[in-house]
C-alpha cells in the first residue's frame, strides 16, 4: 500500500472530530453494519463526517491497514480509532460512547 494513500487517510482522520469510514452514505448506507453505525451516531446527536469507501478502492484497502482492522465501518474520534459497528453498539449500550465523546469535548444532542 502506498504511503500516499496512508497520508490521505491520516489527513482525513485528523480533519474531522468524528469520522466514520463506511460503505455508502448516511442517507443510503450500502450495508447493515454501516447502517447501524449511522443509526448510533444519529441517536447520539453528534456532528460527524463520513468517507464512502465504495467510492475509492485505494481507501477501501488502505483503511484496513491504517487501522489494523479488517472490516468497514470504522469510527475515529479526534484521530483515535474507536472500533467497528459491533464495538460501537456495545459501547453505546453501556453508555461508554457518550462518555468517550464527552471526554473528548464533542457536543451531543441525543
Amino acid at each position: 500500500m502506498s504511503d500516499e494513500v496512508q497520508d490521505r487517510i491520516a489527513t482525513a482522520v485528523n480533519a474531522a472530530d468524528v469520522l466514520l469510514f463506511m460503505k455508502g452514505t448516511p442517507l443510503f448506507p450500502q450495508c447493515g453494519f454501516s447502517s447501524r453505525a449511522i443509526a448510533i451516531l444519529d441517536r447520539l446527536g453528534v456532528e460527524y463526517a463520513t468517507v464512502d469507501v465504495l467510492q475509492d478502492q485505494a481507501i477501501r484497502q488502505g483503511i484496513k491497514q491504517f487501522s489494523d482492522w479488517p472490516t468497514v465501518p470504522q469510527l475515529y474520534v479526534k484521530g483515535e480509532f474507536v472500533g467497528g459497528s459491533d464495538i460501537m453498539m456495545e459501547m453505546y449500550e453501556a453508555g461508554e460512547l457518550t462518555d468517550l465523546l464527552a471526554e473528548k469535548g464533542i457536543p451531543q444532542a441525543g
Partner: protein
Amino acid sequence: MPMAAEDIETMIRAAIPDAQVEITDLAGDGDHYAARVVSESFRGLPRVRQHQRVYDALGGRMGGVLHALQLTTAAPSTGIAP
C-alpha cells in the same frame, strides 16, 4: 465460500485456548453469524484489542470469507471457572 460455525469456533479456540465460544447462525444461511467470545485473557484489554485478537485468530478471513460476523467479546464476569 461460506464458513461452517464449527470451523470458526475451532480457529478461535486454537488461538485462544480458554475461550468460551458461542456462535449463532443469524440468517440460517451459513453466512451471517454472531459470535460471542469470553476469555480470561481479554481482562483489562480495550474492546478494540479484544476484537483484534479474535480477528487474528481467524487469520485474515474476517472481512473476506467472513464478511458478516457480528462479534461480542468479554472477560468472564466472575471468578468462577466455566
